[in-house]
């Protein structure tokens, strides 16, 4: 029965923490994460670690130590953050100040700044820290290594992603080919000087072959309405069906310009859009192009207020060759979607381009991230991967 007493205690603690969280929320409003900015977050981490180490080392049998490192505390911490996460998972989250419905007034439309959630996060950190250090004094066995990897790994990740997130900078940089930048802009337009300068050497983009669709020329809507059909143009000429129509694709040109007498001719230059010559029957045939800033778009009219249109080609890949320079270094690197450039605590991501120009864009837009806690997150995640693998190992041992 002693053990279940601890569960009762844990539920009591949970209730108190919830009341504290709700109290803070109603008196102070949403949690302002900026108060955790360096060095407050580092100090907080050190204080949590120090308290748990001292408690586990010198007062291992104290009521508080025994409770915070117990299974019951772990269960209550998981339950607390789990239930609040369900609310977070059910209610649409927004920071839109215009919304004044009940969830918005309660503060649960911005759960990550909701005090009870912040308290639950902190409680999870504390119980994790106590559990980790309490266990550390035991001898190292396979079981203990797995325990340590999972708990200490999660602790690091929660420290870095929670308390560390306030030190992150999320900036944007827009560069024209040849241009050099020394600074980047925050979301509110504030300029930040960078510890390096970056030049856009070249922006390159590949697109897929465009799609064709049929629209209702009166409404401009794609057909069938609600579930439009698309046809992916093939580079080889062939017949195809779109809705109930059977077309023949006669010619496809990747970069085309009008020749002035109703036809299109090839003009190999990224500036020009693709065009396709289609034939439905003896009466209906003609060119279709999605057009761009250089060439007007062209559709093929069909009977009954319908027309074939070409969609803008979708991006297959886009990348920027950049030159990065600092006081004592200089290098050139290609930045692609999914392949950012990492340099110390900085990461530069290929974000976007001038979508009006498409392939012809000579502008590249980057996301520039500064995250001094990055290494800790990576270490924590690596430990968690090993910890997950230890679950496999451990179950093999049991057999």
């Amino acid at each position, binding site marked *: 029965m002693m053990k279940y007493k601890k569960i009762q205690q844990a539920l009591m603690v949970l209730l108190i923490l919830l009341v504290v969280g709700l109290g803070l929320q109603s008196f102070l409003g949403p949690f302002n994460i900026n108060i955790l900015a360096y060095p407050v977050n580092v100090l907080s981490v050190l204080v949590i670690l120090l308290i748990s180490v001292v408690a586990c080392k010198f007062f291992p049998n104290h009521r508080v130590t025994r409770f915070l490192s117990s299974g019951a505390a772990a269960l209550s911490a998981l339950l607390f953050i789990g239930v609040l996460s369900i609310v977070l998972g059910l209610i649409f989250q927004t920071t839109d100040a215009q919304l004044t419905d009940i969830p918005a007034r309660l503060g649960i439309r911005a759960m990550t700044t909701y005090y009870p959630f912040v308290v639950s996060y902190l409680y999870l950190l504390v119980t994790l820290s106590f559990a980790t250090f309490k266990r550390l004094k035991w001898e190292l066995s396979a079981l203990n290594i797995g325990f340590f990897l999972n708990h200490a790994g999660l602790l690091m990740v929660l420290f870095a992603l929670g308390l560390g997130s306030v030190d992150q900078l999320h900036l944007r940089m827009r560069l024209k080919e040849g241009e050099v930048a020394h600074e980047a802009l925050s979301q509110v337009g504030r300029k930040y000087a960078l510890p390096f300068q970056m030049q856009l050497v070249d922006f390159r983009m590949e697109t897929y072959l465009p799609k064709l669709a049929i629209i209702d020329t009166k409404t401009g809507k794609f057909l069938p309405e609600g579930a439009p059909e698309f046809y992916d143009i093939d580079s080889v000429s062939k017949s195809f069906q779109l809705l109930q129509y059977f077309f023949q694709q006669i010619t496809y040109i990747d970069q085309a310009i009008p020749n002035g007498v109703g036809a299109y001719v090839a003009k190999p230059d990224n500036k020009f859009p693709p065009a396709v010559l289609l034939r439905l029957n003896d009466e209906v045939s003609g060119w279709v192009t999605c057009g761009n800033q250089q060439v007007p778009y062209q559709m093929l009219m069909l009977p009954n207020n319908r027309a074939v249109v070409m969609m803008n080609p979708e991006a297959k890949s886009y990348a920027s060759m950049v030159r990065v320079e600092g006081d004592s270094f200089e290098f050139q690197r290609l930045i692609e979607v999914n392949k950012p450039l990492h340099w110390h605590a900085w990461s530069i991501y290929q974000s976007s381009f001038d979508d009006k120009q498409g392939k012809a864009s000579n502008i590249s837009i980057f996301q520039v991230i500064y995250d001094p806690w990055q290494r800790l997150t990576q270490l924590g995640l690596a430990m968690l991967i090993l910890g997950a693998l230890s*679950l496999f190992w451990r179950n093999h041992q049991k057999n």
Partner: protein
Amino acid sequence: MNWSLYPYFLFPALALWLTGGVLALTQSKMKRMAPFLFLLGTGVLALFILGLWVSLERPPMRTMGETRLWYAVYISIAGFFVYKRWKYSWMLIYSALMATVFSLLIFVMPEVQNKNLMPALQSVWFVPHVSVYIISYALLAVAMLMGVLGLRKIHQGKELSNDYLQRTDKMTYVGVGFLMLGLIMGALWAKEVWASYWSWDPKETWAFITCVFYLLYIHIRKSYPLLVKTALSLLIVAFLCLLITWKGVNYLPSAKESMHSYSQG
């Protein structure tokens, strides 16, 4: 190598996978051949991928068809690993069927061979992230069924054997191991493509909730082994959360602007 040669690799692979999967369920002497035949099937498909890679001069990870090839290979390898390590005889036929679905779809719907994949999805993390989830779903579905059966037995006044509970634990641990790997790979991928490991996107939130419930199960089993009914009930709740993460999340009001919807018009 090109797609016109695909059937010559696909059908031998399917035959090997399914024969291996069925043999694993039998008690015949041929059962020993099961993992060998199964892995050979994976090898045949891997050979096609390799050929495609060489002839395309890039990793074949750019179209939906290419991605599905990888699914089939990863799922069969992970299934093979689970079968060998924990001797779950159903695992081989399950992964054989999943791999068959993915690889056969490319054949039945040849248009996906060249179906555009948006740049964000062109990542080395994409396929392993999804594949380990598919394996974990199967293990955790079985764990959930064991939970339901266990609760029924208790309800009927029968006693649950320790062995039954240990087998349920093992199934859950292995499933959670894969679930965690899927989650972490997802976070690593998110960092590479969206610049942040975690954004509390609805799908991420539900993946987190799912993990929390499985962790509750693990902690209850560890600290309070006598609370059997609570633990087994948690397996059901956790699996429901997993279903919400997988499919249900799209229907929730919270998912209005989810980053995890990739439908393209």
